[in-house]
């Protein structure tokens, strides 16, 4: 059937003018409805993007974005200052370290966890495991970080357990540089691994039961069924999420870092986003900090685009 918005009943293409009028006639109500949504995105997403222009200027709030003078080096002065600063490599190293550690230690956990839950036959036990393991996901970061602070302090129970296991130190672990990444990653696994297993559980439950039946008839035992039916059934999801996760390798959020770090461990804990926060909103170096943030945004955006392209190619699925 010809689309009445594009073609005449005889199948001839309509003129642009007729198309616009017909489209508007049919969707006018919807356009009115989407206006507030557009207003939101323009005011709270696109206006700040325009505001990021101050990365290339010496922004003065008195003059405003457009009348402030351009920064030196053809506007790139703040970027160059950042690249040449002592902080650049430190922030890059910390961001990538935390991100990769999360990828290596955090990524497989939900997969294994989902596979284990999937084997449980007792529905009640299964449900309780899920309820309890999802729970930490809903606790606020402020609370999670304050729990971490209490538990890894000198008399916290985590230090106590470590001492029972032979650890001889007795200081607050948040003051120990080498302890920061493990604390960050382990607490993240505690908070989110259960929740992140949901998507794998959904993929597992989508596997056709007849495949197991067929494997059984072919004489495959449980182990071989897992290898030949279960794992292939979720490989697509795993690859997809892995690729998308790699696309985020340069973005470590500032909130948890800010709630946990202190002067003793800055050398290892400070990442790009927390530095942007400190320089920009604590010290008030608006233009410089916006430049650092923009540098990070551009890298992240490029990585996501590449990751999505790769994902679409490899798995046939992607973010868009």
């Amino acid at each position, binding site marked *: 059937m010809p689309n009445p918005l594009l073609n005449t009943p005889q199948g001839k293409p309509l003129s642009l003018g007729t198309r616009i009028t017909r489209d508007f006639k049919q969707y006018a109500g*919807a356009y009115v*409805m989407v206006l507030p949504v557009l207003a939101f*995105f323009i005011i709270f997403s696109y206006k700040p993007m325009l505001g990021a222009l101050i990365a290339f200027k010496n922004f003065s*709030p008195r003059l405003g974005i457009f009348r402030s003078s351009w920064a030196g080096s053809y506007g790139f002065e703040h970027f160059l200052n950042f690249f040449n600063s002592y902080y650049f490599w430190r922030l890059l190293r910390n961001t990538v370290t935390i991100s990769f550690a999360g990828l290596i230690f955090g990524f497989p956990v939900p997969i294994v966890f989902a596979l284990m839950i999937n084997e449980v036959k007792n529905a009640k036990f299964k449900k309780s495991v899920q309820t309890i393991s999802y729970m930490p996901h809903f606790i606020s970061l402020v*609370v999670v970080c304050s729990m971490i602070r209490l538990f890894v302090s000198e008399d916290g129970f985590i230090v106590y357990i470590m001492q029972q296991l032979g650890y001889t130190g007795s200081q607050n672990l948040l003051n120990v540089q080498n302890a920061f990444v493990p604390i960050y990653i382990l607490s993240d696994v*505690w908070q989110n691994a259960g929740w992140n297993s949901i998507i794998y559980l959904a993929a597992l439950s989508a596997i056709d039961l007849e495949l197991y039946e067929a494997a059984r008839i072919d004489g495959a*035992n449980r182990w071989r069924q897992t290898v030949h039916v279960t794992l292939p059934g979720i490989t697509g999801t795993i690859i997809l999420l892995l690729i998308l996760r790699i696309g985020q390798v340069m973005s470590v959020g500032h909130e948890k870092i800010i709630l946990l770090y202190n002067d003793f461990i800055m050398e290892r804990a400070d990442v790009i986003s927390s530095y942007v926060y400190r320089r920009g*909103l604590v010290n008030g170096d608006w233009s410089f900090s916006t430049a650092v*943030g923009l540098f*990070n945004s551009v890298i992240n955006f490029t990585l996501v685009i590449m990751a999505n392209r790769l994902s679409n190619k490899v798995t046939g699925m992607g973010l868009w």
Partner: protein
Amino acid sequence: MGKAYSNKIMQHGPWYQLFYGFNILFLTAVILVTAYPIYFVLIASFSDPAAMNANYGLMMLPKFPLSIRAYKIVLNHPLVLVSYKNTIVILVVGLLFNLSLSSLGAYFLTLNKSMWHKPIAMLILFSMYFSGGLVPMYLNVRSLGLMDTTWSLILPVAISTYNMLVMRSAFAAIPDSLVEAARLDGASHFRILTTVILPLTGAMMAVMVLYYGVSHWNAWFNASLFIQTPTKYPLQLVLRQVLILGQNAEFEASTDMGDAAQMSELIKYSLIIVSTVPILMLYPFLQRFFVKGVMVGALKG
């Protein structure tokens, strides 16, 4: 374990039975490790303050005699109650904006025959992956005159694009014939959304209430940038003051027994419980909707 379950397990070989037993044991251990920190906070908050001051190690039971003094101090503290109320206001008003705007946007995103569908969808999607950054976001709120108002915590987060896409998927899953029938009856777009689509997507709305609600309840960062007046603080900002920055002078003033130092840890534990219990109580009721919500939202497919 019921008989049917044991039969299912017994029909496999001994290795599988061994694995099954190990699996159950391991998952039990995972649950215990996951739950212990929360359990610890709970029992510590009810413990005897003096006993908690000594080294408590790996506590399995609260230190007796049980005490609710920490709760009394926390609940009598004016800032805690005010911030609790503030958070509830932000939550309710915020949800009204969240749900109405996201439904409008999600509905439009299902109309893929409209000429403007693609450009608007691109505009929305792009904002999900690229942003102006922290400082421009801050300056934007400042230039809009929202500083130190509750609106600064509601309007900038009125739509989460991710959540809106989850809604879109739910809307798009409604059979075309229903929408078509309403259209032939002369229903406007707004009527189709409110009388055909929304009544059919209650489960998804429950998930949205949870997602948006939790994000309002747990938000602290924007408030730390925008809100200066302590009586306008949301709950999490007060928590941050006390739990992270250790600014509990106001609490110490309200402990008249001169045992401020003794109480300060207990106050932290009970504050965590007071602030976290509402969410932990709510979410198991919505749990059955999760899988759907997470699944449709994650991918275009």
